[in-house]
C-alpha cells in the first residue's frame, strides 16, 4: 500500500485538527462514579509499596488494604491509639516483656500462586525490616521463632512497648510472601506487590492518575463495604478541593483555610471531618545561644507569646492549642501547661535577668501560616521590649539549621517555629529531645538526667497509666527548660460526601477497608 503525503494534503488537513476535539462527547462522562465505587484523592503518586522502603501516603493505605498483618491500630476507650488483633490471626498477644506469640488463621492464600500465608512469611517479613530503611520501627526486635506452619513467637532483645504501634500494627507490620519476595531482584519491590491477600486487591495503577483497589472475594475477614476504591492523584490541595466540589472525588483532605470556610458554609451533600493529626508544632529556643542562655529570658518569651492569637490569626481558628509535644489521641497527651500568656510576668522576668533592648532573629519556613504566626509573635515580643527580625527560609536551608553535621548555623540559631510528624506511640514524638539528639534534631540543645532516665523507663513500662505519667513528666521537664512555646497539633481536615464515612490510620491516611456508607 502506498502512503503519500502531499503538501496540499497537509495544508488542507491542518485546519481540521482542532475539530476532532468536539467529537464524541457524552454528558455522562461528567458524572462521577457512584454506588459501590469510592473515589479518594491521593496527595501524591504511589512510589514504593515495599514496607521496608516505602515513603508513606497512599502506600500506607494500600498496605493496610491489600496485605495481611497480625494487628491493627484502633482507638481505645480514652480515644487514644491502641492495637487490636487483625482479621488474619486466631491469636496475637504479649506473653511477657520480650515475647509476643501469634497464630495465623488457616487457609488464607496469597494471590499469584504464592501458596498459603504461614508463620515463615511473618518471620521473613519482620526480620527483613531490621535491614531496611524503617528498621527504627523495630529497635529491639531480635528474631521470630517459628513454632509450626501457622504460629510463632516474636522475640525482643529488650522490652519495647512501642513495638505494637510502631511496628506490628503499623504499615511496617505488613506480612510479605517469603518465597515470591526472595525471588525478586535485590529481594525488593516498588509498585507491584509480589502477591496480595487483604480485604482489597490492587488491580490497576495508572502513574500520575489513579490506583484502583477491588474487594477481594477470597478474603474471609470483615468484608469491605465498597466494591472498588479509586485513589485519584491530585497533588495540589486547591485542585483537590475543586474536584471535591465538582463531585469527582468523594473524600479529600482540605486546607485549614478551606476547613474554616466549610465550617461556616458546607457545600451541598458534603461533610467535614476533623481528625487529630500526627503533627506537633512549637516555637523553639536555642539554650546554648548567649542571648538565650538565661532561663529567665526564655521563660519571659514563653509568657510573652499569645498562642491563642496565633491560632486565630495564623491557623484560621481551627487548630487546637497544644500543651506539650504528644499529639491528641496518643497516650501521654497533655491538656494543660504550667505557663500562660502573661506579658507583665514576662517583663518582670526580663527585668530580673537584667536584660533590656534584646534583639533576636526568628527563623521560619516560608509558609504563609508560619510567617503570619511570626508577625504576631513579633508584635507580642515588642510589647515586652524584645525586637524580632523575621527570617523566612526555604526548606533546604531550614532543615540544616540545627544540624552540626551541616555547618555552623546552629551556633547562630535563636528562635524558630518547628513542626514534626510522629507515629501513635508517645516514645515517637519524644525521641528527638534526648541527649543523643543534641546537634541532630534536638535543636534546643538541652539535656536533663531525669529526662534521660524517664526515656529508658518509658520504652519498657507496660502499665498504661504508669507509662502515661512518665511521658507527662517528660513534657513538663521540656517545658521547664523554657525553650518551648507549644503551639498546636495541626489537625487533618477531610471533606467527604455525605453518602460515605471514611476511616483513617493514625497518620491520617484513608484506610479503604474502614470506609462505610452513611
Amino acid at each position, binding site marked *: 500500500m502506498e502512503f503519500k503525503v502531499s503538501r496540499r494534503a497537509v495544508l488542507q488537513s491542518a485546519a481540521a485538527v482542532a475539530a476532532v476535539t468536539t467529537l464524541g462527547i457524552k454528558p455522562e462522562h461528567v458524572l462521577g462514579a457512584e454506588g459501590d465505587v469510592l473515589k479518594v484523592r491521593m496527595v501524591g503518586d504511589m512510589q514504593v509499596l515495599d514496607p521496608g522502603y516505602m515513603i508513606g501516603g497512599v502506600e500506607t493505605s494500600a498496605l493496610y488494604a491489600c496485605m495481611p498483618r497480625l494487628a491493627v491500630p484502633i482507638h481505645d476507650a480514652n480515644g487514644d491509639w491502641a492495637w487490636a488483633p487483625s482479621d488474619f490471626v486466631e491469636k496475637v498477644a504479649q506473653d511477657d516483656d520480650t515475647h509476643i506469640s501469634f497464630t495465623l488463621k488457616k487457609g488464607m492464600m496469597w494471590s499469584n500462586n504464592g501458596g498459603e500465608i504461614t508463620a515463615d512469611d511473618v518471620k521473613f517479613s519482620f526480620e527483613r525490616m531490621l535491614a531496611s530503611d524503617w528498621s527504627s520501627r523495630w529497635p529491639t526486635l531480635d528474631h521470630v521463632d517459628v513454632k509450626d506452619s501457622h504460629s510463632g513467637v516474636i522475640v525482643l532483645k529488650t522490652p519495647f512497648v512501642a513495638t505494637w504501634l510502631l511496628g506490628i500494627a503499623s504499615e511496617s507490620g505488613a506480612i510479605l510472601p517469603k518465597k515470591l519476595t526472595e525471588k525478586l531482584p535485590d529481594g525488593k519491590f516498588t509498585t507491584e506487590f509480589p502477591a496480595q491477600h487483604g480485604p482489597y486487591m490492587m488491580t490497576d495503577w495508572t502513574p500520575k492518575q489513579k490506583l484502583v483497589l477491588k474487594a477481594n472475594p477470597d478474603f474471609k475477614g470483615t468484608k469491605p463495604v465498597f466494591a472498588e476504591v479509586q485513589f485519584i492523584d491530585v497533588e495540589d490541595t486547591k485542585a*483537590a478541593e475543586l474536584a471535591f466540589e465538582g463531585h469527582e472525588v468523594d473524600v479529600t483532605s482540605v486546607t485549614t483555610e478551606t476547613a474554616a470556610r466549610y465550617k461556616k458554609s458546607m457545600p451541598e451533600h458534603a461533610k467535614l471531618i476533623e481528625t487529630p493529626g500526627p503533627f506537633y508544632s512549637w516555637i523553639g529556643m536555642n539554650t546554648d545561644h548567649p542571648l538565650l542562655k538565661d532561663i529567665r529570658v526564655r521563660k519571659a518569651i514563653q509568657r510573652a507569646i499569645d498562642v491563642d492569637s496565633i491560632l486565630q490569626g495564623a491557623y484560621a481558628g481551627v487548630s487546637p492549642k497544644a500543651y506539650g509535644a504528644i499529639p491528641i489521641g496518643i497516650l501521654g497527651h497533655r491538656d494543660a501547661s504550667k505557663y500562660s500568656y502573661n506579658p507583665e510576668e514576662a517583663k518582670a522576668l526580663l527585668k530580673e535577668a537584667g536584660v533590656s533592648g534584646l534583639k533576636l532573629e526568628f527563623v521560619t519556613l516560608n509558609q504563609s501560616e508560619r510567617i503570619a504566626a511570626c508577625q504576631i509573635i513579633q508584635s507580642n515580643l515588642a510589647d515586652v521590649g524584645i525586637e524580632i527580625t523575621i527570617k523566612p527560609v526555604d526548606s533546604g536551608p531550614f532543615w540544616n539549621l540545627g544540624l552540626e553535621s551541616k555547618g555552623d548555623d546552629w551556633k547562630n540559631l535563636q528562635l524558630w517555629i518547628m513542626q514534626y510528624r510522629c507515629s501513635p506511640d508517645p516514645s515517637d514524638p519524644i525521641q528527638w529531645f534526648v541527649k543523643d539528639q543534641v546537634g541532630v534534631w534536638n535543636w534546643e540543645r538541652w539535656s536533663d538526667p531525669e529526662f534521660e532516665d524517664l526515656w529508658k523507663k518509658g520504652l519498657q513500662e507496660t502499665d498504661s497509666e504508669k507509662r502515661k505519667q512518665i511521658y507527662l513528666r517528660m513534657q513538663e521537664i521540656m517545658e521547664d527548660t523554657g525553650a518551648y512555646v507549644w503551639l498546636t497539633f495541626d489537625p487533618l481536615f477531610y471533606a467527604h460526601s455525605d453518602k460515605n464515612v471514611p476511616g483513617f490510620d493514625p497518620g491520617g491516611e484513608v484506610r479503604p477497608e474502614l470506609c462505610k456508607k452513611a
Partner: protein
Amino acid sequence: MLLYLIQRIGLSILICVTAMTLLFAAIHVIPGDPATIMLGTRATPEVRARLEKEMGLDQPVPVQLVKFLGRAATGNLGIDVWSKRSVSTIVMENLPYTLILILTGLGWSALVGIPLGCYSAIRRNSFIDKFTGVISVGTISIPSFVVAIYALLFFSIQLGLFPVIGAGENGDRADQIWHLVLPSLAVGLGWVGYLARIVRASMLEVMGENHVRTARAFGLPESKIVLHYALRIAILPTVTLLALAIGGLLSSAVFAENIFARPGIGKLIVDSANVRNYPVVQGAVMATVALFAFAMPIADFLVAWLDPRVRSAL
C-alpha cells in the same frame, strides 16, 4: 538543504546540552541537602547517605553532569530514586499527555485564529476587523492560568458541564477527549490572537500580489482566490509561529496540567521539583528542552517543504 538540516539539528543538540548544564548549575546552587528534604527529620544518616549515593550526589558536580549527558545521549535518563523506575519510562508515560494537550490547544487556536485573521484581512477596517483586533489583544494578554481557573470554576463547578480533574478513563477515547476540552482551551486561547494577527498581516500582503490580481482579472470567484491562492501562501508564516509557540505552550501546559490535575510533563516537573526528585526533574526538563529545540528545525523543514521559494533559497 541536507547541510542546512544537519546544521540546525547540531544547533538543537547544543541547545539541549547548554540547557542541561544550566539546569545542573541551578540545582546545585539551591541551598539545602536534597536527601534531608526528601526524607524529612526521621531519616537516619545511613539512609540519607544511601539516597545521596543513589542520586549520585556524593560525586563532584562535573562528574554528575558528564555522566548524565553521556547516559542521556543513549536515551537513558537515569532511575527515579523513589520508585526505582526508569526516568525515561516515566517521561514517556507523561509526554503524550502534554503533546496531545499542546496539539489540541494549537488546534483550537488554528480553528479560531486563522479564519478570524483571514476574515479581518478581507474586510479590512470593518467592524469585524476592529472587533477581531480587540479580541486578539485580549486573548494574548490573558494568562493561560487565569483562563484555566475561570473555565474550571464556570464550566465545571458552576455549570457542571466538564470534568474537573484528570485525563479520562484509560481506553475510553470519548472520555479522554471530554477531559481535554477545557485544558486545551486554556492552553490554546492565547494563541488565537497571535494567529489572527499574523494571518491578517500575511493575507493583506498576499492579497496585493500580482498572482492574486491576475486571478481577479481572469474573473475567478473571490472565495476561490482567498482560499485557494491567498490563504495557502499566507498560512506559511504560521508554521514557524507554531513552532515558536511550543515553548509558550509548554509553560501554559504546566499551569493547565496542575490546575486540572492532569498528567503530563509539566505536572511531572512541578511535582518532582517540589520533592527535590532531581533525576526525574532533569529527565523531564531534558524532554521539554529537546521538544522545543527540535520543533524549530522541524518547522524550518516544513516551511521549506511547503514553499518551494524557501527551499530554492537554501
